[in-house]
């Protein structure tokens, strides 16, 4: 006989009172709301910016290295070839955001699966998986990602995969810790006693309860992935065929002393994007754990 499993726990339910309480705390947090608005603005600029500022970032439009306001230069000046820096900033976000999104999805899938299985089953499975995790954790992430990108031709896909492969261990550890904490609680025992399968217990019962810290961590990793992508692009290991903030800065490395605007504005775009994720992540952390506020 199979009894339908209805996991009940005080922490569960995105729409239940705890979720609503978290949402309320989040909205009351000015910094977090600012981060959210910032992010929405950046995403909006990336998606629709070219409608409002219709300039081709790869076209040479004026004399090279003209500062903002000099001669016929556009608002953010021109780079070492005479291309419009503002057009680059407006169009540069799509690569960073796409790469970061794909990388984070990869991190979530690999990290959560390994962490969940490791924490739930324990024993030799846990030992084996944690050894693998540790192996990836001791490798210098940036260099490891550089090697992967260089071996498989720089492209949006290879860069995303490289960042994902270099970043998942942290998520695996966090998921494992959450599963270790939750797996012996009453509501999990109840589900097990009612005959639920392991798969069902892992994904249907424990996982939803492990979500809050994972959401916080994934938000912060999103920011880290943007930094990671811009670093790779800066070093010349981004997709050479797409516009990217990191690439703009990397290409201006020889000439930036003659034009501060060529590196300052693209850098501010990266900074603002990462900051928005940090603020949102922080706000979520406070909202899920009101006791830790102000830390």
């Amino acid at each position: 006989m199979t009894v339908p499993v209805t996991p009940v726990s005080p922490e569960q339910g995105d729409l239940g009172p705890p979720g609503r309480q978290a949402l309320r705390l989040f909205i009351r947090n000015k910094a977090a709301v600012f981060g959210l608005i910032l992010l929405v603005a950046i995403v909006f600029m990336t998606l629709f910016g070219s409608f409002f500022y219709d300039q081709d970032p790869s076209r040479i439009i004026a004399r090279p290295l003209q500062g903002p306001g000099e001669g016929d230069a556009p608002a953010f000046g021109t780079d070492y070839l005479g291309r419009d820096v503002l057009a680059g900033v407006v169009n540069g976000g799509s690569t960073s955001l796409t790469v970061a999104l794909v990388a984070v999805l990869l991190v979530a899938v690999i990290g959560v699966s390994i962490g969940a299985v490791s924490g739930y089953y324990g024993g030799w499975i846990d030992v084996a998986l944690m050894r693998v995790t540790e192996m990836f954790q001791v490798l210098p992430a940036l260099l490891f990602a550089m090697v992967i990108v260089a071996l498989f031709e720089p492209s949006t896909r290879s860069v995303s995969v490289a960042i994902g492969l270099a970043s998942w261990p942290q998520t695996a550890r966090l998921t494992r810790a959450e599963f270790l904490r939750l797996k012996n609680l009453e509501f999990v025992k109840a589900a097990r006693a009612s005959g639920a399968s392991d798969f069902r217990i892992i994904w249907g019962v424990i996982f939803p309860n492990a979500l809050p810290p994972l959401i916080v961590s994934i938000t912060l990793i999103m920011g880290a992935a943007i930094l990671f992508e811009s670093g790779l692009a800066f070093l010349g290991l981004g997709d050479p065929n797409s516009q990217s903030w990191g690439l703009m800065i990397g290409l201006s490395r020889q000439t930036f002393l003659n034009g501060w605007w060529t590196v300052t504005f693209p850098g501010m775009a990266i900074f603002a994007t990462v900051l928005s994720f940090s603020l949102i992540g922080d706000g979520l952390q406070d909202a899920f754990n009101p006791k830790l506020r102000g830390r």
Partner: protein
Amino acid sequence: MKQIAARIAWSAGLILAVIVMCFSLIHLAPGDVAIVIAGDSGAGDPEVIAEIREDLGLDDPFLVQLGGYVGDVVQGDLGTSYRFNEPVTDLIVTRLWPTFLLVGTAVSFAIVIGVLVGVFTARRPESPISHGVTVFSLTGYSMPVFWTGLLLIIMFASNVQWFPVSGMRDVRLDGNWLEEWVDIAHHLVLPSITLGVIYLAQYSRLSRASMLEVLQSDYVRTARAKGLTERRVVYKHALRNAVIPVVTVAGLQFGQMLSGALLVETVFNWPGLGRLAADSVFQRDAPVLLGILILSSTLVVIINILTDVVYRLIDPRIRVGAATK
């Protein structure tokens, strides 16, 4: 003690696994090293390529190559660089100390200033400075490190020429050892601030949080009740416990710092391991890359073990806790 011995034993296994994985990754990936090397001497000649393959043992079965490599590494031989035609070990050793100097300075700067700021703000948690630290820590974390470096160069090496733009020493300088050290220190300022600022931000926030917690603990109340001065309570009793998480995090972040150092060295033309690594990626210099990957992983493992030891030394509770388990 026994725990630490066991950790060292399986750490060796961990490093071996890293070697096998990195070697397989680099050698099974598409692209032929022989063509890259031959391309440089201007020959697409199949005979030349065959000769190079023969020389490097690239025609041997994969497992034979792997076995040979592991055997060499165990004996401290990391092979010969394709590009420089020099032993990889020598190349790495000459580049190691500039990186240590950079990372060491940056971390010390971050820990010392970070803890001081953290302690100061924890005593006045609602002051504007305290809120400023929270803002600063998010800002420091969100800035791409290479961008910070470029901005510092624009501000302090170009607009006002207080510090050199790049490099580690002035080639024109011909002085005694003291003048040389001063010169290196002068070159070190901007790169180490660039690298340190990220961690300074994190550590000040971290030590503020742990200080806030410690200041509310029973033993601090006891110390105050005994009538000790506030200064003595904070610096003699509370500080020690507030430093623990900072030291632990700093130890665990060592690998991350190497990544940061790679970018900072590229920006400042600092002749360290990071730049060697970046150059080797573009030149497909597999032996050097493998050597650096193995060495940095080993360093990370060693630092992690040391962190664990130091952690036990600073915090007697952990020793006692382990004994009673």
